[in-house]
């Protein structure tokens, strides 16, 4: 018996070894296929001056032929409505274009300067509260040769408004809900007719909700065709996409703006870790590292702020026995040294705020007055009270540090805070529970209100049907009214609401507006507005 086993051992081993070798060889062959190998090798050469045919077109001498961007994510798909957030928009918004473009500027008072500049529309008028008339840019063609005109605009708007189509899971889907119909006035003029007089939402739709889509292709193949084969009017079109590895775009020669971005070819590589993204620039593998965070920026020679920002703060449970007391809520606000947080944690890339978003609101954040906070805590009889602080949204990389600072600050005024970090989905579920089930302290970072829209954000944060825990029906009516008015009247109303919320009710703690920080190579010259996405026309080379 033993002998027979011994005899059979060698052939079995050979079979096993052969099978293992074949498996390994097959894996290597499949994993290091010819396409990807070529791509990676060409990528590695991008740091050296290249004078290939692409570069010869118009890239200045001694600059790489391919501009490499280390992105924080790989988009889920390349449709204009990919729900991939800022990192996804960084790719798709080079391919598609909106009706209007904005250059958002943040001034140090924490207000937003928003200027509309023409993109696929040259101008817009607002003749009555329910009607918006837009003059379209002539001589624009899609990457597939179709013409941009009134009919294309109508179909694009209907796709945006159709929840069953691409926008179903998108963050911009809400923009289309107020759209009643689109009228094609003539080949270069369209009119949006809305269900309700909601100026804010329509302004939003002009600059982020609406993108031009080729009418014939959209109608014949549905919007799903753009998931992997995007076709827009933007300055770049898709060259190839190797999922999990890279997306390559090449310049669209038929773009209407011949003075647009100068890079002939752009390659996006996804590097989810901020530290790794930063290292790709240091190692010369990428020329622009997107959203590396304030900490990683310390080790990078060239950094720039812009291209997206969020308001960070603490949602207080206004229905809780302790945080329901306005004295405690004010004490929590007085307990934080916002300037120190902005300087030390965010290294200057954040601004202290008293209100969310960047709006024409003049409000001073609560000053750092720990002694005043202690008096208020004593007056409320809350000294020694244990409060749970929940966080885990992960929108900004500095959450852990912030949580520690908040705990230390609140403990210092006499409270006993326990930190509880949750997974994002648990965190979100908890935040959506009814008021009494919400924790007393809940970290929240929001993009609401950052796009020039505020009434919806107010209703969400402070409305009785919102996600917050403050409820005063009279405020709800004011938020609804705010959405319908414009100009000075709007600004005055907004100021009045903000003052009463901040000074009298103090339902929240707003801490800082956090801007994105990016790293870049020596020859890159970015000048980024605070927009939600970066357009490559804002990045020069040389």
């Amino acid at each position, binding site marked *: 018996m033993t002998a027979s086993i011994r005899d059979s051992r060698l052939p079995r081993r050979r079979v*096993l070894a052969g099978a293992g070798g074949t498996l390994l060889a097959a*894996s290597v062959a499949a994993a290091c296929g010819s396409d990807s*190998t070529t791509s990676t090798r060409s990528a590695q050469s991008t740091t050296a001056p290249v004078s290939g045919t692409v570069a010869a077109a118009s890239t200045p001498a001694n600059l790489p032929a391919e501009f490499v961007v280390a992105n924080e994510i790989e988009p*889920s798909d390349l449709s204009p409505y990919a729900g991939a957030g800022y990192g996804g928009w960084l790719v798709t918004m080079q391919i598609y274009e909106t009706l209007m473009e904005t250059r958002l500027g943040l001034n140090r008072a924490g207000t937003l300067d928003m200027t509309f500049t023409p993109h696929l529309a040259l101008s817009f008028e607002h003749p009555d509260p329910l009607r918006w008339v837009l003059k379209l840019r002539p001589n624009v063609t899609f990457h597939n040769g179709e013409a941009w005109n009134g009919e294309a605009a109508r179909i694009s708007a209907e796709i945006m408004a159709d929840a069953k189509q691409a926008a*179903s899971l998108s963050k911009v*889907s809400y923009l289309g809900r107020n759209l009643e119909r689109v009228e094609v006035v003539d080949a270069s003029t369209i009119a949006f007719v809305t269900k309700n007089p909601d100026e804010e939402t329509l302004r939003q739709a002009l600059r982020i909700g609406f993108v031009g889509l080729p009418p014939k292709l959209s109608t014949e193949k549905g919007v*799903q065709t753009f998931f992997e084969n995007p076709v827009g009017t933007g300055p770049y079109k898709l060259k190839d996409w190797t*999922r999990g590895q890279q997306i390559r775009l090449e310049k669209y020669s038929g773009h209407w703006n011949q003075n647009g971005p100068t890079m002939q070819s752009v390659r996006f590589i996804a*590097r989810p870790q901020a530290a790794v993204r930063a290292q790709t620039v240091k190692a010369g593998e990428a020329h622009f590292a997107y959203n590396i965070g304030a900490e990683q920026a310390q080790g990078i020679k060239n950094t720039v702020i812009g291209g997206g920002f969020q308001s960070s703060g603490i949602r207080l449970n206004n229905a809780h026995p302790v945080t329901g007391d306005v004295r405690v809520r004010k004490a929590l606000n007085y307990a934080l040294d916002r300037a120190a947080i902005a300087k030390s944690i965010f290294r200057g890339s954040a601004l202290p705020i008293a209100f969310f978003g960047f709006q024409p609101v003049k409000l001073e954040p609560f000053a750092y007055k720990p002694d005043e906070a202690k008096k208020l805590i004593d007056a409320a009889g809350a000294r020694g009270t244990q409060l749970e602080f929940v966080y885990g949204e992960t929108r900004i990389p500095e959450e852990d540090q912030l949580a520690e600072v908040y705990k230390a600050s609140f403990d210092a005024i006499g409270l006993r805070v326990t930190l509880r970090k949750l997974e994002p989905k648990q965190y979100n579920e908890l935040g959506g529970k009814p008021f009494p089930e919400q924790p007393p302290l809940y970290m929240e970072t929001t993009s609401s209100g950052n796009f020039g829209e505020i009434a919806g954000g107010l209703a969400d944060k402070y409305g009785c049907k919102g996600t917050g825990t403050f409820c005063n029906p009279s405020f709800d009516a004011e938020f609804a009214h705010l959405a319908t008015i414009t100009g000075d009247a709007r600004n005055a109303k907004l100021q009045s609401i903000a003052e009463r919320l901040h000074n009298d009710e103090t339902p929240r703690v707003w801490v800082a507006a956090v801007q994105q920080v990016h790293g870049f190579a020596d020859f890159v010259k970015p000048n980024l507005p605070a927009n939600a996405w970066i357009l490559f026309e804002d990045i020069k080379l040389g």
Partner: protein
Amino acid sequence: MTAYLLRRLASGAGVIVGLIIFAFFASHYIGDPVNLLVDREFSTDEDRARLMEAGGFNRPVQEQFMDFAGGAIRGDFGNSIWQNRPASRVVIERLPATALLAAAGLAFTALLAVPAALIAGKYAGRWPDSLISGLATASASTASFWWALVLIMIFAVRLGVLPTSGYGSWRNLILPVVALTPGAIGRITQVLQTSIRTEMRRAYVSTARAKGLAERTVLLRHVLRNSALIGVTLFGAELIGLLNGVVLVESIFAWPGIGQVALQAVQKRDLPVLLASVFYVGVVVTLLNLLVDLAYVTLDPRVRLK
């Protein structure tokens, strides 16, 4: 042998069925699936109702399970919420990259751990033994993500000899493999070292030496062969460990494997991809366990005779 093989296959199939049942009910137990899919900040009740209807989440749970199980048997886990493509395709296209990383990791582990254990065994009680023991303990105690960042800093940024991350060339493979394996190298060295030391004290070793065999022959032909059983068990377990460990390493090195896609699925609340990942990794691990058992039978006739 055939009966043994069939028993192991049946047992593996049972494990996979159990895995499917567990994955389905666990994913439903952790919360309302629609809550996982929508963005709280921007969704409305209408969005939620539409998703409930579209995903069939408003049907009785047993009905949902039968649909899910039927699809899973056919390899159909539905469409990825995040990527709008079949979840199976999303996962399967990532398997070769993970297989490459894990196989290379195992080969690298064997390359370092076996010689280290042999040297330590040969010089038992002397300084090479102490040094290797110390290094093995340190190696087993350090986390992959720490190694990953240190290696990137040294070899990609400071020395510039290897890429920080990415995929497609053998150069991209080096840092992920080195970052992935210290734990496995440490653990295998420690156990194999002890096993070799024990074997070295057995009578057959003295007999072999008395027969005039060279020390190298005694070590490689006799001692290592008798320690191989524990080695096979260890390497099998470590290969499964490497498959699990790739999640972090793939994420850091942007290695497009199943670990990266599973992590994305968790972050993006992509339930179909998550379930498909659990299923396919479960199948691979079950098959690996089966291979380890078969290797065991081949190497040790006593197991076969039982």
